[in-house]
């Protein structure tokens, strides 16, 4: 397939989400369901009927992807603990203890730099608007981006540290077993 022979430009973009089936649409919706939400609301967003949504939500509940609240009507929300667990397992599988340790050190350095830059213990302690107005070189976008990166680095460091502990524990078990 040649994409460059047309004088008037390339073919149109492919729709990135067009091939998602109903299960994938519900999964994508669940990712942003951060508060208890009814199956019918989730079905509306995922563009399917509530019965179908309930079926998949039940399955996602079994897998731990969603938390099911037994209210009337029943509600569902994304289970962050599942995604944390998945990520930490992935990190532990993909990296050596040394690599994980090195990454914890890098992230600690980055966090220390943010603390010094903003003279605060945590990103939540910084008023982004005030920090931008008090700075000549940093705009509100820079500050907001920094604070979010800082919050991200804190979470990432925690995940790498937990992956390191998981691996260290696993190796000890192997050595003693």
């Amino acid at each position, binding site marked *: 397939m040649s994409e460059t022979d047309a004088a008037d430009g390339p073919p149109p973009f492919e729709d990135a989400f067009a091939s998602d089936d109903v299960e994938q649409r519900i999964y*994508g919706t669940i990712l942003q369901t*951060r508060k208890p939400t009814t199956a019918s609301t989730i079905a509306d967003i995922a563009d399917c009927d509530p019965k179908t949504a309930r079926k998949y939500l039940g399955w996602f509940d079994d897998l731990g992807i969603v938390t099911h609240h037994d209210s009337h009507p029943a509600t569902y929300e994304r289970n962050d603990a599942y995604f944390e667990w998945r990520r930490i397992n992935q990190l532990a599988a993909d990296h050596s203890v040394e690599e994980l340790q090195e990454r914890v050190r890098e992230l600690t350095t980055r966090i220390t730099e943010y603390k010094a830059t903003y003279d605060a213990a945590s990103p939540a302690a910084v008023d982004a608007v005030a920090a931008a*107005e008090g700075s000549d070189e940093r705009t509100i976008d820079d500050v*907001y981006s920094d604070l979010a990166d800082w919050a991200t680095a804190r979470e990432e460091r925690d995940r790498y540290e937990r992956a390191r502990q998981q691996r260290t524990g696993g190796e000890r078990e192997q050595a003693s077993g």
Partner: protein
Amino acid sequence: MVPPTGDGGSPAPIDRPILEFLQTRLQATRQVSRAAITDASGHLELQVVFASSYYPAPVDDATLTVRWYTNDDFTLHYREQYADHAWECRWDRHPNPHETRDHFHPPPDAPTPGEDATWPDDHRDVVALVLSEIEDRITALWSE
């Protein structure tokens, strides 16, 4: 020790599962040559590189970086690199003293402050909207 996030009042970390979801979808389209989650630039983000065949020769490189946070704030930054300059714009949702929470930093250099705007809630709808704008931009580039 970790204060609650997600109330919109305090900065929230990157939502990696959403970036992973978008990565899979974008990587599968013909207009994208590569989509990768990286923090090589100091930001954990999804870096999307558009296929060079979609661009006329003067464009060296075209990218979209996606940052989506766990409070559903976001920054989507589109950038075309030329030999001697860049053309860029940005779709943002975050607290801002100059504009509404939803705002757009227009091309050619995505300056601050931006313009008030309204974006959809769903991450897929936001990405689809941005891709549609980029597609319009590419059409304009070819007719120049």
